[in-house]
């Protein structure tokens, strides 16, 4: 009998405690429902805002990245163009310089040929003139030793004949 009382007492005890607990939870639920709900709601909103901001930042960053990528692509294409243009100009200049060099070489070659020809003619002429001068000198020397009174008089007489003819024809 004592055991039975104990069990009932225990059940009662357990029941009261359970009831207290339920009441406690009920009061707790009643008191904390609104602030916790508000707290989580505001937190959720805050997190949502932060997520939105982050998304926005990510979008902006993506946009900037795209723009920069585009710019880099543009710069790269410009660089390629520039490189090609420089290559083309350089090639053109090189070919022009080579062409000019060839022209100069041809001109120098022709000039040198002409100069050699002219120098050769000049030398030949100089030699001829020198030979002529020597011959003249020799002739002069021969004539000086050969001329005498009679020959000089004959020369003068013949010269006067020439002069006379000249004067008569001019008159």
């Amino acid at each position, binding site marked *: 009998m004592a055991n039975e009382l104990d069990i009932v007492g225990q059940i009662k005890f357990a029941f009261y405690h359970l009831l207290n607990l339920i009441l406690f939870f009920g009061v707790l639920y009643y008191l904390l429902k609104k602030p916790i709900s508000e707290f989580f709601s505001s937190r959720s909103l805050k997190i949502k805002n932060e997520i939105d901001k982050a998304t926005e930042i990510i979008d902006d960053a993506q946009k900037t990245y795209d723009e920069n990528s585009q710019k880099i692509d543009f710069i790269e294409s410009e660089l390629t163009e520039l490189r090609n243009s420089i290559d083309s100009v350089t090639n053109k200049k090189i070919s022009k310089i080579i062409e000019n060099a060839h022209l100069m070489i041809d001109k120098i070659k022709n000039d040198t040929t002409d100069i050699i020809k002219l120098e050769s003619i000049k030398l030949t*002429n100089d030699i*001829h*003139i020198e030979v*002529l*001068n020597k011959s*003249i000198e020799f*002739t*002069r020397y021969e*004539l*000086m030793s050969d*001329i005498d*009174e009679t*020959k*000089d*008089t004959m*020369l*003068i*007489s013949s*010269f*006067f004949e*020439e*002069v*006379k003819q*000249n*004067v008569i024809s001019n008159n």
Partner: protein
Amino acid sequence: MSSATINDLFHALTIGTLSKHELERLYAGLSNFIDTFNSDRSIKSCLINDIYPSSLKIDIISEIVSDCKHTRNFLEALIEFNLLKTFVDSREFFLKKLRMILGKIKIEVTTVNTAQIEKLQLVRENLENIWGENLEITFKEDSNIIGGLILQVEDKFFDGSLNGKINELKNLNLEGEL
């Protein structure tokens, strides 16, 4: 301008007023004056320099051409008009003009040797035979001509020298070369 004034004086002197004999004396006087002018540097510098007075110049001229009144008057007129230098610069022109008036021909003969009188006589005869007797002949010696002679008859030049023939041949050869 100055030359024209000399021309006027010259015309006044030579046209009609003087006889042939006087013109001959005028020519001789002017030739003598020019020879003296060319040979004497002190006279030359005195006559062409403006710092000397005209009276001094006239005195010098009177001494040089004392025997010819017309020459003296002409030169004095030139000094008076300050035209003496212009006259001296163009002396050959006026002497030639006078020679033309006188019918005289000036001949300069260049020979190897002017000491050979016979040859000079031969030359003179030949020249007179060609241009008549009214000649003013001067002989010049130049041994470089080798033989023959060179004649300068007024403006005409006749080269009958051996040196001239040689040069002629040389020039012909040179022309052939070129």
